[in-house]
C-alpha cells in the first residue's frame, strides 16, 4: 500500500514540476491494471488535497489503432480537475509541460447523474450539451514511452483541456468531420467515427468504468470522449485550432 502511495507521489510530482520520469514498469514489470488505477486515484487525491476540484473524466485508447498499438482491447480513463482547464483562445505556457501534444476531441457535459451499465439511449438522455475540445496530453514518462499500467497511473496522460461552446446534442454526432489546423493549415483530419465507431460508446464505457471504482458522472461533469486523430506535438508560437462539423471551433496559442 505504501508503495502505491510512493508511486502516486512520484507521478504527481512529475506532473506538477513538468519533469520526465522513467517508466514505473521498468522497476515493477508486474504492476497490474488495478494497482495502476489505484496509483492514479491516489495521485488525484493529492491534487484535490491541494485545493483542485474534480470536473469530470477523460477516456483514452478509444481508437482501434491505438488499442492495437498498446496491445489492449479495452479503453482507459482518467480524472480531470479544474487546474487542467485552459482558457479558450488564450495562450498555453509551453514551459509547464514535458512534451505537450494536442488532440481534437468531443466533450460531453452531463445534465443528469450516470453510472454503471447503461444503454446509449440512457447515456445520451443524461447529456446536456456537447462541445468541440482539445486535450493537451503530456506523458510524464521519458520520450512518451510507456506500458499500459504506466499510462493509467499517469492519469492517462491527461494534463490540459481547452473547451469550446456547448450546443444541445440534437443531431447525429457519429460522423462529424474534424480538422486540427496549425497557423491556418490543416495538420490532422478525421471524423468522430474514429471514437469507437460512435463517440456515445465512449460515454457508455465511461459510466461503466467509473462505477467500477465507486464513482459516478454527476450533473455538470464533463466527459472527454477520446482522441479522433493523431496528436500534434506543440511548438512555441503555434496557433492551434480544431473545427468540428456542426459543433464549432476551439483554439489556443502556444506561448513560452
Amino acid at each position, binding site marked *: 500500500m505504501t508503495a502505491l502511495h510512493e508511486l502516486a507521489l512520484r507521478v504527481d510530482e512529475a506532473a506538477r514540476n513538468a519533469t520526465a520520469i522513467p517508466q514505473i514498469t521498468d522497476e515493477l514489470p508486474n504492476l497490474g491494471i488495478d494497482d495502476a488505477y489505484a496509483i492514479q486515484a491516489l495521485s488525484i487525491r493529492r491534487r484535490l488535497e491541494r485545493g483542485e476540484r474534480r470536473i469530470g473524466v477523460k477516456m483514452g485508447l478509444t*481508437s*482501434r489503432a491505438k488499442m492495437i498499438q498498446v496491445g489492449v482491447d479495452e479503453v482507459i480513463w482518467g480524472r480531470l480537475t479544474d487546474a487542467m482547464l485552459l482558457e479558450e483562445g488564450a495562450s498555453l505556457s509551453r514551459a509547464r509541460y514535458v512534451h505537450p501534444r494536442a488532440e481534437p476531441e468531443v466533450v460531453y457535459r452531463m445534465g443528469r447523474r450516470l453510472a454503471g451499465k447503461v444503454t446509449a439511449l440512457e447515456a445520451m438522455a443524461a447529456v446536456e450539451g456537447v462541445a468541440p475540445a482539445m486535450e493537451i496530453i503530456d506523458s510524464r514518462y521519458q520520450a512518451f514511452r510507456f506500458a499500459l499500467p504506466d499510462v493509467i497511473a499517469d492519469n492517462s496522460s491527461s494534463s490540459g483541456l481547452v473547451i469550446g461552446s456547448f450546443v444541445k446534442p440534437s443531431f447525429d454526432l457519429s*460522423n*462529424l*468531420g*474534424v*480538422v486540427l489546423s496549425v497557423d491556418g493549415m*490543416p495538420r490532422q*483530419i*478525421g*471524423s*468522430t*467515427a*474514429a471514437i469507437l*465507431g460512435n463517440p456515445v460508446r465512449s460515454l457508455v464505457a465511461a459510466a461503466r468504468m467509473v462505477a467500477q471504482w465507486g464513482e459516478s458522472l454527476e450533473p455538470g461533469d464533463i466527459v472527454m470522449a477520446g482522441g*479522433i486523430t493523431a496528436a500534434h506535438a506543440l511548438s512555441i508560437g503555434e496557433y492551434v485550432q480544431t*473545427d*468540428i*462539423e*456542426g459543433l464549432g471551433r476551439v483554439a489556443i496559442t502556444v506561448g513560452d
Partner: protein
Amino acid sequence: MTEALINVEQAAALLRDAVATGTPIAPLRDRVENPDAATAYAIQEANTRHWIGEGRRLVGRKIGATSKAVQNLLGLDQPDYGMLFADMAFGDGETIPVARVSQPKVEGEIAFYLRDDLDGDALTLADVMHAIEYAVAAIEIVGSRIADWNIKIVDTVADNASSGLYVLGSQPRPLTAFDPVLCGMVMSCRGEPISTGAGIACLGNPLVATLWLAKKMVEVGRPLKKGDTILSGALGPLAPVKGGDVVELRISGLGAVRCRFEEEA
C-alpha cells in the same frame, strides 16, 4: 548490360496485357523513354484511345493524389487524373467482382455529377459549383497493374491513375445539403472503422480539386462534359479489401453507400 528502353505505345500495350492477364508488371519508370509526367499521360491517353476504339464509354474522370502525403509518396506537387468508363461503375449495394481489380484497395470519396460542360478559358470555382447537379458518396476501388503498388508518378499516371471500379451512392444531394469541407467520412467493415477523414483531406476542398481537374481537362483537350461523373479524391487513407468483405462508406450529409466484395474462387 542495359535493356533497350520502351516507347509510349509499348508501355501502353504492357499495361493492357496486365489488365487482360491479371498479372501485374514491373514499374515502368525505369524502362520507358523520357520517364516524366508528359510521357506518363501520353501512355494513359494511348490506352484511353484504345479503349474508346474498343467501344468502352467514357463517363467521367477520377482525381488522384489529392493529399500531400500521397503526393510526397509519388513525387508529385499536384494531383493526377484518370479516365472513368461506364463498365467501371457499380450501384449502391451491388456485389463487386473484385477479381477484376489488381491488388484492390478502397477509398471514400465524394462523386459529382455535371449538368453542364466545363469548357472554356479561365474557369472559376463558381463555374464548377454551377455545373454540379448533385453529389453522392462513392467508394472507389483502386488497383495497380504495377507489382506490389511499387509506384511513382510515371507508373500511376500511365496506369490510368491506379483506377479500378467505383460504387455510387443512391442519395444524390445538391451542394447546399452538406458541407464539402467539414463533412465527416467513415468507411467501415464489420462495424470497424477502416478509414476516417473529412472533406478537407481532399486538397483542402473537393470542389477546388474538381476545379483543378476541369482546367486540366480543357488544357489537354478533353474538357469535362454535361453528364460526366467526377470522383473528386480520397477523404481519408486507403484501406485494403479482400473477397467476402462488406464495406460501408458514410459521408456526413450524403448518406451511405455499401458494397460486397465477391469471394475469390
